[in-house]
């Protein structure tokens, strides 16, 4: 795989600094549906490019991808805006897809892994759009205290964020578990880096949730998620769990 091909693919399976493009695009999309489509399509384009070349990525891509992932995970710690947070987490998650495509037998299932990483982000994007509609922005601390004011919304939000940050038994968890187990015997340092990145996601997720869910109730008179919508989210999340387990079993 040539450097040029790598850099082109690095636009879609984000590698710093070309990752700036994705985040800039995501941020500027006005309609809430467009970011969702972008989140689903963007990594798939990257994977298509990589898989179409039918060549293994060069060795330097893996540390670069890890560095990109770690950088964005670290930066996500300080973000308060949900749309930006999604962009940074997406970058951090998708950068690790380079490790998936470098993993030999795994490569064939890479689009499914990408889908498993992206779907929770899409759900979060949808929830973020709902918050923006209700409060003017989806942002930690503005208004905060969703657990009291919008308990159903808060509940769904918590589970979706858990899905994003690769909590068991969501698909991202199995992807991460596979990567760590795959890397541990051969390159322990990579496994250690992956575990560190995973930890940063959890931290970033906890900070985001602390700003949104915890604290005194804000936004009096704002409608909570309808029961139907809540069950819809639960259904999708359950399907994700099922898909994660099924995928893990299929791969093993």
């Amino acid at each position, binding site marked *: 795989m040539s450097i040029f091909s790598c850099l082109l693919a690095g636009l879609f399976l984000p590698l710093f600094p070309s990752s700036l493009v994705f985040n800039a695009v995501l941020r500027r999309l006005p309609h809430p549906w467009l970011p969702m489509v972008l989140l689903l399509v963007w990594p798939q384009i990257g994977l298509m490019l990589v898989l179409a070349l039918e060549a293994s990525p060069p060795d330097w891509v893996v540390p670069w991808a890890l560095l990109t992932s770690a950088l964005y995970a670290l930066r996500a710690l300080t973000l*308060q*805006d949900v749309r*930006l947070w999604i962009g940074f987490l997406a970058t951090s998650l998708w950068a690790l897809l380079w490790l998936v495509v470098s993993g030999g037998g795994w490569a064939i299932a890479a689009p499914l892994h990408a889908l498993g990483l992206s779907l929770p982000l899409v759900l979060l994007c949808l929830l973020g759009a709902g918050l*923006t509609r209700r*409060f*003017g*922005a989806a*942002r930690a*601390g*503005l*208004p*905060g205290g969703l657990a009291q004011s919008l308990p159903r919304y808060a509940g769904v939000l918590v589970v979706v964020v858990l899905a994003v940050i690769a909590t068991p038994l969501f698909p991202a968890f199995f992807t991460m578990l596979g990567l760590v187990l795959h890397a541990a015997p051969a390159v322990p340092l990579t496994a250690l880096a992956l575990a560190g990145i995973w930890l940063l996601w959890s931290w970033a997720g906890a900070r985001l949730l602390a700003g949104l869910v915890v604290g*005194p109730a804000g936004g*009096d*008179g704002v409608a909570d998620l309808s029961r139907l919508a809540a069950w819809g989210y639960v259904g999708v999340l359950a399907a994700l769990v099922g898909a994660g387990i099924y995928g893990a079993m299929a791969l093993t």
Partner: protein
Amino acid sequence: MSLPLGQRLRVRAMTYMAGEPIPFFWPMRAFIHHNPLHGLEHLPFGDAVAAGARLLHCRGHLSRRQYQGYLAAGKVDRSRLEAAVDAFVAARPAIPGVALGDWLMALLTETGGTVVPVRDFADVPDIHAAVRGSPLPPDGGTGLGRLGEGLKTALLAEGPVYAAVDGLYGTDIGMQLDELVIRICLEFLDEGQSVWGLPGREHGLFTAWRKVVGRHGWLFPHGVHVRGILAADPSPEGVIVHVMETLGVREDRWTAYFTRELARLHGWAGFIRWRSSARHYYWGRHYPADLVDLLAVRLTLGLALLKEHGRRVPAITVPAIREFIDKRTAEACLRHEFHGSRLLPALAQGVEEALALGGRVRIERVFREYTAAKRRHEAGHQAARLRAVAARAGAVTALEGLSAGALGRLLEGIGEFETGEGMVWLEAMESRAMGHLMAGVTLEPPPPRDKRPFAQALFCIDTRSERIRRHLEGAGDYQTFGIAGFFGVPISFMELGKGSETHLCPVLLTPRNLTLEMTVDGPRDPAAVTALEKVLHELKETVLTPFVTVEAIGLLFGFDMVGKTLIPRFYNRWRRHLHEHKPATHLLMDKLDRDQADSIVRAVQRAVIVKAVEQEYRLPAERITDDLVRELREAALGRLPGAPGLSQELGLGPAEEQGFIRRLREVYRINPAFARLQLERLARIGFSLDEQVGFVSQALRSIGLTRDFSRFVLLVGHGSTSENNPYESALDCGACGGNHGLVNARVLAQMANKPEVRRRLVSHGVHIADDAWFIPARHNTATDALELFDLDRLPSTHIVYLDRLRSGLTAASRLCAQERIPSLRASSRATRPPPGAAAACRAAERNAMDWSQVRPEWGLSRNAYFVIGRRDLTRRLSLEGRAFLHSYDYRLDPRRRLLENILTGPLVVGQWINMEHYFSTVDNAGLGAGSKVYHNITGRFGVMRGNLSDLRTGLPAQTVLKQGEPYHEPLRLITLMEAPLEHARRAIEAVVAVKQLVRNGWIRVLVIDPETTLVSVYDHGGWQHLSCPPSHPLSEESRAS
């Protein structure tokens, strides 16, 4: 450099003044109910609530939605609301086209949320345009200068400098500082919870902390700055002056500044303030700390943190912040909006980026955009709120037709009304509560009795006594009285096996008499389980053993947990059998004469000498003769040159003999000086006969019981039992300083049963029948069990009547539990049929023994009334456990002394309890203790939320809230006195503290004259009279004086 004494004293005086509004916090071992705004009682209630809200960042009233709920439930007097609105409207100039009264009633009764919120950007012309739906005028009067001045006032007027820095830069210094100060307080104030204590605590808080910081600066992230600041002066006062001067705070603002600093952690500050004033407090005496120490520590750390942040924050002093706001107003405003969470969400990201990137041009551009958007938002929001009220008042057209000037006056009027709205609701609620009380009182005298009651029972005035008194009276021929639970006898009590004194009286009093509890049983070996528990605790408290202990015997805790959780009644009863039982005891309560005291001192000295000889020379007891001991004692006291008997017995030389005698004097304290000290201490024990007569006389006369005594006179103290409950003592007797009231009952019973006392009481007008016998008893308010004590002293002639007495008490207990238990059920189970009496008793017992029960009883929740008068006044009325009932007969008190005593003690304690419940209900997070679920016991004297927080003052949510909504109805204490108005008025005027409480509206007072049936209520600075019969509602006030 050391600060001159005069200036040090000035700083001390300022700190003392600054600490006045900080409420005391008593250790929770003996929970003292108190008014969290006690320091503001010199202000009228409404003003104090407003001041408290500013100082402690708390709410003083319920939300409008909650009051509207009470209105719908019929607990608010609507006519009183209308009268308040009418009075408000009448005091303002009319606004053409606006029926302000209709607007305000619509606002009060139908609108939720604040109608006129604080606005910084939108002006009246903007709102006027928004109301009409037209575009906003180009310049809404949002001048940069005005915003800057507003900002300076908001940030620098009273608050600490770091709060201003936090407000501008989002630095969180305040939170970091609070955490550091809490850690220091935890380490210093610990009362035995920690195994390792802070070194040098005996030198005081500031000195101990200073030493630690000086020696181990590397332990502290801010050590360098701290040591630099501390180098300025050795004294805490000097450090305070140095910090304040460095920060550039003007000296005339220091007191207010200190108050703000102390109020940040008012729980810890209140505890330090209390312990520095409690001279008898062991921990305070040994490890002194005061507010000056705390302030010096706090200010030092605050300045250190500011300096630390000073690397990236340009302004950390008052002049620098002022200059920053003046020169870069737009940035300062944006920063304040951003870090104060006041941002418009839609613009938040843009503002954040502008502030992060900097650049004057960019910031000013974003500021202009933001200002315009915020103006539109504020104006639109305000217009929408006005429209909502107008729609409910049927005045939408009128609103749209208003001129800008009229709209401004309307906004001003509504805003002003909303500021004082809480008081309007409160007074209307109180009016309804007063009406309810007065509708039930009976002024007719009781029918004459042909025989005395079977038994009389004196209960505490506590609201929980009302229920059981009612049921006891219904269970048979019982007469009950209400008296403060310490029965008018302030006691310093030394319990059997304890080495410290407990004050069993209201905290307002200091007892002079010491009572000892003694047993005639010999010393016993501790029960095996008790010893085992001691070993276990020691294993838990050392450094390494906990790891092994958990592995070795952790499973035992599992059994304990299962038992306590699944079968608490059975399991706890079984466990009690395993523990050592307290032996039967007597109270040493008669004054000792000189000979008796000498004899006791001699006996103690002899016992000590025997022990000393045994320990030092291993001499068996049979060889230590009385003569030998007498000789040693005389030698130690300097009356004999030596003790030849001992030398002969043991073959000692003269030097050894003299050495032992010297040790007896110095180590074992057998010397004249210590003997004198012992005699002085012994002089405090017990009560003289005159004192006993005085206490019994006062107690009985104060409740109007001077003749027709029954065969049994029960003195019922009360207390509560619960498991795993740090707030257990909050459920005990407030009049006994948060302890059980049994000891006071035993003391008064012993006094009143003495023939000599009874003989002398005749001269006081108290005629106790010869066969009358006072029996102490205890009312367990968690289970409603009534238990009799000291029955071994009961005359044999009374024993045959004991079964009947016990039956009556049992019936009352069961019925009381049956009435009470349904209110403790979860709301989801409220629809089930009420339990039978037996089932209710079992449920109450389980509540008292269940370690997972967060609400063993409601305690004093829902207290609302304080009735001072004959029992017959309210006997026919069920007050649902909401009234303090103090028996009183004004005809026995022509000089008002007894009434003044009731006002001074019980009423003030009642007011503290009432206010504690009031504020814990209206703002449980700020002035209450929040949920028990998050509580952790701290230092053995308080609780914190989580592992690090301010000490939680006030009452937990489980005591005053049910399902998150108020269970306690927050009202000021409605005090009803049965007496001629002049009699009551002069008594109130004579007690300065109560006069202030009444005049400032902390207590609502009603006086009912049984002779004229005239009812008078103190309202808005004067006595309002009701000429109608008392069964009519109180809103029908006819004339005022």
